[in-house]
Structure formats: structure tokens, C-alpha cells
């Protein structure tokens, strides 16, 4: 077989580019400064301020001396949970190199439930409620941090796994933990089961108010660490090899990130209960609107979105619809839809 190549009629293209060694003589155009992140942050901050004011004041009955501290604690709890969920999701997605997984989807909510069940099963609800709240809170957080770190390490260790395998692993683990809990539930007294029912959904009404400051301390430390890691997290976006190339100790950094993530998720879960899909919602929204890949922008934007969604949602539900506990359910519903949509689209970013 022969191929005939006909000369084209047009003249040959430009000379094969002439050498231009780097010279600093030519004036370089300044890169355009990206102002969008700043405006997004200011806009979100202002909206959040309005929402928080509304939450504190709208429909207040009775003396301010009671209303302000009461609502203030609740506001603080929502702020803590919103920030923790948003920041942990963004960090987790950066180190796992995808935009579908959240730390809770990986079986964490079920793990929390299992922990609660095990407690009730082994020591009984009476003695469980007798444990001083801060002690129980710290114990729960510690157990979950330990399990969380082990779980994430195990899932992410060794060969790179595809996102779909990780999702599947998360589901399987979730089912496994849940079956264990329901097995134990069958063995316990129906009255004690009541205690567990409360543990299944996050609630901003029935959490223990005395724990808010302790949680704030722990979460504050974790968020400060996350902030300190922000530039290294940016580099992790390039994947393991390129991050190594740029001098970032990938294994150590990822290890540290996973500990921070586990603390954020565990403490916020121990405070108000498990939240599965919410992080997915705010993180993906944050990537869309932040206008920058930098964690110094994405993490605060996601955090502001998270708090805003909780505060605004809770205000509307409480004041307009006079619902009390439905916020978590609604948020999970929306987040679940986003999860499915992302999964269907095969969006692995």
C-alpha cells in the first residue's frame, strides 16, 4: 500500500520558532488580580450576619436575659457544626482527589450509631446517662477520632482506589456497622431503644448545651491546624507525585489532614449527632462560587456557606413553619440529591 503525499499549495508556516532564551528585558504584563474571592467572602459574611441577627431576634418572646443566651448557644453550636462539616469535607475531598466523597459517607455516621448502641448495650441507658456529660463527650470523640483515623488510613492506604470503589466501601462499611447496631438493638430493652432513637439524626434543639464550649475548644484547634495547612493542601490538589516533586511530604501531610478531619467530624457528631450529606452540598457549592482553587479561599467560603445554611434554615423553619427538628432531615435530603446527581454525572473532580 502506498500513500501519496501531495504538497499543499500554501506556503510553509512560520519559521520553526526562533530561540528566545529567558530575558528579563521585555516588560511582563502583570497578571490580572482576581477580586472575586474577596467579594464572595464579603457577601457571604454580610448575609450570614443578617441571618444570625434574624435568628437571635425574630419572634423573641419573654425577657432578653433568657432569649439571648439560649439562642446564642444554639447559634454557636450551628456555627461550630457548619464550619466543622464544611472544612472537613473540603480537606477530605482534596486528599482523596474527588468531589463526591465526604468523611461521613465513608461509614462514619453508622459508626457513631454503633458506638451509641454499644454504650447502651454494654452499660445500660441508666448508667450511660449517669456518666458526666463532658466525660462521655470526650470519650465518644476520642473513640471516633481513633476509629476515624484508622478507617480513613485503611481506605486510602496502598494502591490508589477509584472513587467508585471508595463509595462502595463506604456503603458496605455503613451497612456493616448498621447491622451490628440493629443486632444489638434487638437484644436490648425497648425502653432503652428510645435513647438511641435520639442519636440517629442531628438536632440543634436537643444537644447538651454544657458541651458547646468544650466542643468549640477542640474544633477551634482543628480548624486552626486546617488553616495552617492551607498552602500545603493547595499543592495536594496536584496529586501525590507532583506534590512530592514540589517538596511536600505527601504521606505525612495526608496523615495530618486525616487526623484533623477525624477530629472535626467526631466532635461535631458527638455534639449534635451525625450529618452525612451536608458537607457535600456546601463543598461543591463553594468550588462553584469561590473563583479560586486556593484553600485559603475555598475553606472559608465553604465554612460560611455551611453556617449560613444552618442558621438561615433553622430561622426559617422555627419562625415561619414552626417546625423544630426537621432541619437536619431537609438538609440531608438536599445533600443526598446532590450526591446522587454527582454520582450519576460521574463527576470525579
Amino acid at each position, binding site marked *: 500500500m502506498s500513500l501519496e503525499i501531495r504538497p499543499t499549495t500554501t506556503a510553509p*508556516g*512560520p519559521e*520553526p*520558532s526562533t*530561540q*528566545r*532564551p*529567558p530575558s*528579563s528585558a*521585555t516588560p*511582563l*504584563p*502583570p*497578571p*490580572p488580580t482576581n477580586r472575586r474571592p474577596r467579594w464572595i467572602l464579603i457577601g457571604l459574611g454580610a448575609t450570614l450576619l443578617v441571618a444570625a441577627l434574624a435568628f437571635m431576634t425574630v419572634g423573641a418572646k419573654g425577657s432578653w436575659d433568657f432569649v439571648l443566651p439560649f439562642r446564642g448557644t444554639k447559634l454557636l453550636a450551628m456555627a461550630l457544626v457548619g464550619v466543622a462539616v464544611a472544612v472537613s469535607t473540603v480537606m477530605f475531598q482534596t486528599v482523596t*482527589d*474527588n468531589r463526591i466523597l465526604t468523611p461521613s459517607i465513608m461509614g462514619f455516621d453508622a459508626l457513631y450509631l454503633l458506638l451509641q448502641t454499644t454504650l447502651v448495650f454494654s452499660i445500660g441507658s441508666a448508667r450511660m446517662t449517669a456518666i458526666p456529660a463532658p466525660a462521655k463527650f470526650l470519650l465518644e470523640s476520642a473513640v471516633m477520632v481513633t476509629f476515624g483515623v484508622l478507617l480513613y488510613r485503611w481506605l486510602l492506604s496502598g494502591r490508589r482506589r477509584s472513587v467508585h470503589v471508595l463509595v462502595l466501601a463506604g456503603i458496605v462499611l455503613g451497612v456493616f456497622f448498621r447491622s451490628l447496631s440493629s443486632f444489638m438493638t434487638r437484644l436490648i430493652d425497648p425502653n432503652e431503644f428510645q435513647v438511641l432513637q435520639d442519636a440517629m439524626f442531628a438536632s440543634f434543639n436537643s444537644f447538651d448545651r454544657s458541651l458547646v464550649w468544650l466542643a468549640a475548644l477542640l474544633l477551634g484547634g482543628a480548624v486552626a491546624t486546617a488553616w495552617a495547612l*492551607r*498552602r*500545603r493542601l*493547595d*499543592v495536594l*490538589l*496536584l*496529586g501525590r*507525585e*507532583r506534590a*512530592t*516533586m*514540589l*517538596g*511536600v*511530604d505527601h504521606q505525612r501531610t495526608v496523615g495530618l489532614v486525616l487526623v484533623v478531619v477525624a477530629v472535626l467530624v467526631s466532635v461535631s457528631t458527638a455534639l449534635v449527632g451525625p450529618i452525612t450529606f451536608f458537607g457535600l452540598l456546601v463543598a461543591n457549592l463553594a468550588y462553584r462560587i469561590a473563583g479560586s*482553587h486556593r484553600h485559603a479561599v475555598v475553606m472559608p467560603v465553604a465554612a460560611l456557606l455551611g453556617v449560613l445554611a444552618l442558621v438561615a434554615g433553622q430561622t426559617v423553619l422555627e419562625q415561619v413553619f414552626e417546625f423544630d427538628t426537621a432541619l437536619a432531615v431537609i438538609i440531608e435530603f438536599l445533600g443526598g440529591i446532590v450526591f446522587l446527581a454527582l454520582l450519576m454525572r460521574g463527576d*470525579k*473532580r
Partner: protein
Amino acid sequence: MIDVLDAVKTYGEVRVVDGVRLALPSGGLTSIIGPNGAGKSTLLSLVARLVGLDGGRVLVDGLDVTTTKSDVLARRIAALRQENHLASRLTVRDLVTFGRYPHSKGRTTPEDLEHVARAIEFLDLGSLADRFLDEMSGGQRQRAFVAMVLCQDTDVLLLDEPLNNLDPRHAVAMMERLRAAADQLGKTVVVVVHDINVAAYYSDHIVAMSDGAVMFEGPPHAVICPEVLSDVYGLPVSVHTIEGRPHATYFR
């Protein structure tokens, strides 16, 4: 500059890099050639500390790559990988700016920005600087990744198939740039190329690998000869001299 001392890498039972010994002097352009699966990328990854050694040692500028701190090495070695998959959505400028990380640790200075702008100019990406990488052609993306590597401003440059996806004009320009980096800036450049004639024309030194081992190495006129190439590739290769330079043909 680069000393590979009996480097070994095994995957399972297979010794993918099998006791390679190499000493590449400072400055100059070395090409690694060889068939698919010969272990070229693995060898480059070993030198760039992207995969761990299972035996032997690698020294870059006298520093052992397994024991030297990663951020110290990042200011001495930069590497381009064979595949340029990226999970996140970045612009060319974002990507190239990452090349400054070893120097800036993320706090980009005006001087860093100057390096970035120069690297973008250098690879003919001026008009694409603020384009997202997933909205560019394969060759444009390849140039963006090379720009990032150059921006790291290291003495040693390891490039795995830098000519991937490039049209002839940009391929020639790329090789001339790498030559210039070696000649004018004194960089030690190592490239993996599949085009034997590109290797013959642009390199000071050619390393021919097969089955995880270095089969031959030497200056172009010593390696680019029918016996060596036929042996390395298991394919009849004839070599002609065109304008005083060896030129291999391997298809009819």
C-alpha cells in the same frame, strides 16, 4: 550530577529496573530511549524520588534522594511525568505558579510572578495563560506542564516524553529550549524520547534501555547505529548519514 548506583525497582516478582548504573555529568542533555516497558519512566521516577528504591542508591548533586529532605530536593530536581492527569480545575497560570512552591512555600512574591510570566512566555502560552487546563488541547496542556517544571528553576530537569502531543513545530521548539537550558543556563537535562532521530540530533549523550537494564550508552554517533538499535528495539533499523549526522529509518 546524577549518579545511579545499581538501582533496583521490583513490582511483584518483576525487576522493572534491574541494577542500573549511570553517571551523568553536570550540564548537557541526555536522552533515554528504549521500547515500551523498558523501565525508562521508572528509572526517571527513581531519580526524582517519586517511587522508592528496592536496592542501590541514587545521588543527585551528591545528595542521596532517599534520605535528603524532600523540600531540599525540590529546589534541585524538577520532573515532568509521562501522563498529565489532573483532578482539579486549574488555569495555566495557577499550574505554573505551583512550580514556584519549593521557593515560595505558597507565599508568591513579585519575583515568583516574574518567573511564572517568563515560563509562560517561554512555552508560547501567553494567549492561553488564563485558560483552564481542561479546556485546552493535548499539546497545549503538555506545554503548560513543562512550563511548570521550568518554573521550578532547578539544576536538574527530568522530562518523561516531553514531546507527547506536540506538533513538529512545537516539538522542535521544545527541544531547542531544552538545549538552550543546557547550553546557556548550565542545566542538567534528561529526557525520555521515542523519536530516535530527535535523540540523535539534540543530545550529548544517549542511554538505550531494554528490560530494565541499560543496554548501551554513549554519544549519539556511537548509539545510533544499526546493530545497537536493532538489538534494543528488536526491529531492523538502518542508519544513514544525512548532512554529517546519523539518521535512523525503521519503516518502509
